[in-house]
């Protein structure tokens, strides 16, 4: 790090696309004052406030928990708020674009409505045959039982895994890493009794079997959810369910 020259400004290239004005995306370069803590998100805010106020992008929490600011940064899906310019000094350039594999609404804003609809379709809530009254207290769950699904409950719905997924790129109908990991999260929750209700879509053409286990989704996940592991564990469950169905025993947990 000490061998890298620390500049006073840094050049940032941003993908622009304004559907009312542009036929196709184009690139715009900006010079932004550099400091050690400068994140990609802060640099975009600097550009918007000082250089070109028409640039649009989503952001909010700036602490890697709201999932708004996923971008392609030098071709890699990352959160803008947790990516720092200091890590690009050696490369000497940085290019920011909207997430791959989604339609672009404007500039860096990807149309994620289809992705959110997928999350909504996997029945991502506890399903009980019978609800226990609140007065009887909590469903007991040991720390070990929590640990079985906890990792898969950490997804912030940022969409980076969809931008990384070659299968989703080819087939937008594929449920994709985050939605499948979310279904798996509930299937693995000891309080849930709904895995058989989730099995039809997990087993479907657009479910776990579409995944070719490239594993790039897990590599780019900023929360270490490891959707690839969830999907492949889901394949095992799916196979078991298929086998149980053959002998008429599926439907339980």
């Amino acid at each position, binding site marked *: 790090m000490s061998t890298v020259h620390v500049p006073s400004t840094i050049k940032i290239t941003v993908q622009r696309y304004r559907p009312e004005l542009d036929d196709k995306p184009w690139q715009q370069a900006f010079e932004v004052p550099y400091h050690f803590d400068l994140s990609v998100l802060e640099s975009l805010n600097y550009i918007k406030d000082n250089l070109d106020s028409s640039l649009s992008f989503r952001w909010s929490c700036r602490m890697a928990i709201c*999932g708004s600011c996923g971008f392609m940064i030098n071709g890699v899906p990352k959160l803008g708020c947790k990516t720092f310019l200091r890590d690009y000094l050696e490369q000497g350039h940085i290019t920011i674009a909207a997430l791959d594999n989604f339609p672009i609404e404007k500039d860096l804003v990807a149309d994620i409505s289809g992705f959110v609809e997928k999350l909504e379709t996997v*029945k991502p809530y506890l399903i009980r045959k019978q609800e226990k009254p609140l007065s009887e207290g909590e469903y007991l*769950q040991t720390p070990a039982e929590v640990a079985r699904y906890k990792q898969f409950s950490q997804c912030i719905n940022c969409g980076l895994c969809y931008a990384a997924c070659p299968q989703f790129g080819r087939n937008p109908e594929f449920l994709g890493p985050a939605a499948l990991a979310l279904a798996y999260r509930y299937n693995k929750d000891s309080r849930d009794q709904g895995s058989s209700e989730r099995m039809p879509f997990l087993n479907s053409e657009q479910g776990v079997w579409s995944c070719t286990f490239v594993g790039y989704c897990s590599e780019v996940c900023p929360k270490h959810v490891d959707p690839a592991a969830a999907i492949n564990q889901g394949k095992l469950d799916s196979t078991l369910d298929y086998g149980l169905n053959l002998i008429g025993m599926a439907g339980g947990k």
Partner: protein
Amino acid sequence: MQTIKTDVLIIGAGGGGLRAAIAAAEANPSITIAQVSKVYPMRSHTVAAEGGAAGVIQDHDDVQYHFDDTVSGGDWLCDQDVVDYFVRHATEENMRLEHWGCPWSRKPDGRVNVRAFGGMKIERTWFAADKTGFHILHTLFQTSLKFPQITRYNEYFCTNLLVKDGVVQGVLAIDIANGTFVTFLAKSVIIATGGAGRVYRFNTNGGIVTGDGMAMAYRAGVPLRDMEFVQYHPTGLPGTGILMTEGCRGEGGILTNTDGYRYLQDYALGPETPIGEPKNKYMELGPRDRLSQAFWHEEKKGRVINTDRGTAVNLDLRHLGEAKINERLPFIRELAKSYVGVDPVYAPIPVRPTVHYTMGGIQTNIRAETPMTGLYAVGECASSGLHGANRLGSNSLAELGVFGRVAGEQAALHAKQADMPQMEDVQDQVNEQKARWLALRSAKGTENPAHIRKELADVMEAGVGIYRLSSELDSTKEKLASLQERYRNIGLNDGTNVFNTEWLYAIELGFLLDVGEAMVHSASGRTESRGSHQRLDGFETRNDVDFLKHTLAYWQPGSAPKTAYQDVVITTSQPATRAYGDAANKKGS
């Protein structure tokens, strides 16, 4: 222009808004509910809450203790009927979240675990590691998907309440994806838009937390109450303001100054407690207002640490050990490493006070009703009377459950007997407001709105901070008046329809300016010191004779707000000396 009719409309899809939507759907499954939010639900700022949600659950705890902690924590400015209702229902709402799948942290026997929090006599803060808000938000969003009555309008930006003869009729909104206006007609409207921390320069809040709902209600004639009470959280990261949860101290973390000294013992919070043995309501487990004030004094004494990112004190977690930090505070470790380059397993985290929460907001009562018929508010945007002059940590997440449910049920009940508003009754307002916003989009003035936004944030920090002086309040008032004037002369450059965030930011800036004015004028009128509102100009003590009252700020078009006062509801707890540490025992409470 599109018109959408719905029985219940909810502005916002954070914890309060989602809980209200589910409650409304459960209360009356035959109604329609529109959940209208400027961001996708999971982006809502509830997501960033870390430490936990209060609710009495241990055998040796009692709702009376929770009541007493909350009322004294709020320096007796709480409405005690509201506090009483809250403490009696917080646990069942936390339990409901458990039944809906919230991954609460557990004890070895499988029961829900609780942690200590500031100002709480007994441990009663339910937590999901240090991402409690994230898990509550996702649990509520995902559970809300079970209800087909709820229609989500994601990325619709609400600009105005529509009102006829003092009765709410609906909302005017912009569909962000294409820049077109939509009129929502609704029998009941619930505002659940969160706080206004972005009025200030250094804050824990996301960029979306711009006081939208507060400003919309305020402009429609509903008073904003207790807006002078702005909470500085004592432990934010210098530079960014990113939150380091109070759970750090609940788990045993300590605060030290530049001499390595646990300075809180000098501020009526001691005596010093042994490291690794946190004691409720002592030292680091004092309330937020007192801890932030202590930092202010340490800074004046020159006993804070100068870092590249500004002055700070040390939040030291090292004695907790790596295993406990990973189990209880994994997000804190991740954030500290990423944003200040510190691994708390090996080094203390630099922290300083940063604006966190608005105790004040839209005036509501125990039924989440505002003074306007059909209009409800819940969560940080509301002033329910729960938090008084200083909120206790973990009461606000619990509030989302308790009063989110109340708001949803009340809105459903009202919708059952109210008539559907008619477009002809609001057509003139819609036309007028739409023209006004479109004119703003193509405004060709000379002022850069981003500069106004920064100046607002700086002047609020300077004038309406941890300690206040009439001279500084006056200069802040003048500055805000001039910023309002400059706002009328802003220039925008985009002009396009699709996802025009320059335009939305400009609308938000108008909201911020109005909310900031309500804050400074309310602060100016309160010539006493109470909770988070501390003065240094001859009004250093609490004055119950004149100010055991809520401030009400009323919007005045084109000029400063008017203020009035409303009595606080006292039921069982008469105002007494507010004390922590050994001082609390000396007074016999």
